[in-house]
């Protein structure tokens, strides 16, 4: 049987709010529902465990920063950098999110149904079994996947708009997959387009199905759509820039 705890965040500062969430988890809650969230930052910051936290309202900046394990579901928008330096776990945002989504994320998943701001997926990185995944249902803004060093970043453009320019500047690891064609002019230095192979498609299909399932979308059109895959032109983008004294 799941143990659910409900917290009213109305007028509560983020520190006591996080203390209440931590307390609920320590007391064995599997699910924490946080109501009336209005921009409180750092929800789930540094949180361990495998509980699910439902955030009703608008989550403030650095949602799930340094988080290691739990799932956070936001019924609303999220501000700047959800999933910042996140270790593992999952963040599902039913609205849109601000800039630097999944910044330096090293594991787990961030799913955003709506749009994201500038510098989405910046410096995501992977190591051994830890491979971060960011999937965006709507559009992403400019400087998508900047300095990307690992992981998977998918932008679906389900609302018919795709605003990303300067994609993958300084990318030296990982992959960016965008539904539809991407104009060469939208790629930044260091990024190159390659065809999405059948193996790639098989590999990302489970991620797309999970995304569709989380948001109640029909997975088939998403799984079977055309995609452009963007990867680093080199794993050593700065190797040719320097000489020694």
């Amino acid at each position: 049987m799941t143990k659910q705890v409900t917290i009213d965040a109305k007028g509560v500062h983020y520190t006591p709010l996080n203390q209440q969430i931590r307390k609920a988890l320590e007391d064995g809650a599997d699910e924490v529902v946080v109501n009336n969230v209005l921009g409180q930052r750092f929800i789930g910051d540094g949180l361990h465990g495998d509980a699910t936290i439902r955030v009703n309202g608008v989550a403030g900046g650095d949602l799930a920063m340094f988080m290691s394990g739990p799932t956070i579901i936001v019924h609303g928008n999220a501000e700047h950098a959800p999933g910042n330096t996140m270790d593992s776990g999952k963040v599902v945002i039913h609205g849109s999110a601000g800039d630097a989504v999944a910044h330096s994320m090293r594991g787990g998943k961030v799913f955003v149904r709506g749009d994201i701001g500038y510098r989405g997926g910046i410096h995501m990185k992977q190591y051994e079994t830890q491979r971060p995944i960011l999937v965006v249902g709507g559009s992403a803004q400019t400087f998508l996947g900047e300095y990307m060093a690992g992981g998977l970043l998918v932008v679906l453009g389900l609302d018919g708009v795709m605003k990303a320019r300067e994609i993958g500047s300084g990318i030296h690891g990982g992959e960016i997959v965008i539904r539809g064609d991407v104009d060469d002019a939208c790629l930044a230095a260091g990024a190159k387009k390659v065809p999405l192979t059948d193996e790639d498609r098989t590999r990302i299909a489970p991620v797309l199905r999970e995304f569709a399932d989380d948001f109640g979308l029909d997975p088939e059109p998403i799984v079977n759509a055309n995609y452009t895959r963007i990867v680093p032109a080199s794993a050593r983008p700065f190797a040719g820039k320097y000489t020694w004294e």
Partner: protein
Amino acid sequence: MNACNLGSMPLRYRVTIDRDQCMECGRCVENCSYGVFRQEGDKILINSRKCTACHRCLTYCPRDAIMLTEQPCDYRSHPVWSRQVREAIYNQARTGKIILAGMGSVADLPVIFDRLMLDASQVTTPPTDPLREPVELRTYLGKKPGKLDFRRKENADVELTTELTPNLMIETPILLGHMSYGAISLNAHIAMARAAREIGTYMGTGEGGLHPNLYPYEDRMIVQVASGRFGVNVDYLNRGAAIELKLGQGAKPGIGGHLTGEKVSKDVSKTRMIPQGSDAISPAPHHDIYGIEDLPQLVHAVKEATEWKKPVFAKIAAVNNNAENVAAVARSGVDAIAIDGFRGGTGAAPRVFRDHVGIPIEVAIASADKELRKQGLRNEVSLIACGSIRESPDIVKAIALGADAVYLGTAVLAAMGCRVCGNCYQGLCPWGIATQRQDLVDRLNPDVASKQVANLLHAWTLEITELMGAAGITSIESLRGNRDRLRGYMLDEGLLEVLDVKPIGA
């Protein structure tokens, strides 16, 4: 782009062997990781071009047969077209690239510390003898409350009601600065950690994460978070005694860092949490700080993740608007600010940044302390001076200019054997310090090296107490910001005003 009719450059060093003394024992061949020496038949041959002046061969030659001369070949002397300038041009004419260099600035600029003289007591106030009267060096790093509130209990006792924030207690105002695992070896880190524990101080991890072999010393670690976030997760943050956000570095203000793939060995990859052989790129800014208003958010994110149990430091490079930078950082919620002067060390930095960007630590500390006092913020942060602290008087002078403590970098490396040859980037350090090659790392015995580091800190601590005692100062608080105990010797009026120090004789 390797066009070249420039020929080879004149030798930087000439290595010679006194053949009368040499007994062909081959220790030089074994010890030189750069390949200067090779045994051919019964003769040891020399390739001076590979020499870095690391002195390993000299140290291990049982007959003192090896001699080294720097710049054995003269250029036509010229006051403007120096050797360095000419050789940089030849290098770039050949390669078309940015020149990287190891260690700190080599610019021949006056050192302000050397032109600040310390005070001593004579007849008007007597000196104290540290042997007889204790000189208190214990220092607390972190926020101090602006005021204290008390409550009188029913039994008439007085109780403090002000909530105090966590501080780091150090027994001497000397910390071991941040040099990452990757830039230096695991044995070097272990030696530093043991010395920190023995002396009662802390060491910085640098931005390369924390190796599991250092977990036993985690209570002595200041864990660093840089823009690349290498090795950073919540467990790493929780392990440290304090957390430092690296916002800048004195050797290369305004730019990021870059550990080349060659140095990302299996173990380094594990600690940094990136694939083996991949470049570790730390961008110039933190990508969640795009303006000063974002810094408090990062500071609070780190504090929130660690439940407000750890002091959070920020490290910045000393640049022109240092006072404004420091005041802004002090308002962000950090507990201490480390300021890194333009002579700060580095494993690798572009030569032009290393030698031309930034301001000296002496000026940066003085202006920071002055500005913080002016704005009523001095109690909000401790100040840590770093970037070319070379000897104990530098520490006394830095504290008199307003610092709470100092970070040592190069001095610690030197205590472990480093000869400041500046070839850290080659990854072949024969002293086992700036290398990841196991046979070289094994040369550095952490038990011995930690004793050497502890000896240095102990000796400097003794010297500091002697210098303070001679000036009649018995506690570090009475020295901090006490510019009256300094006099400027041959410093110009403008600089004296910035330092807030009187000239000699005044």
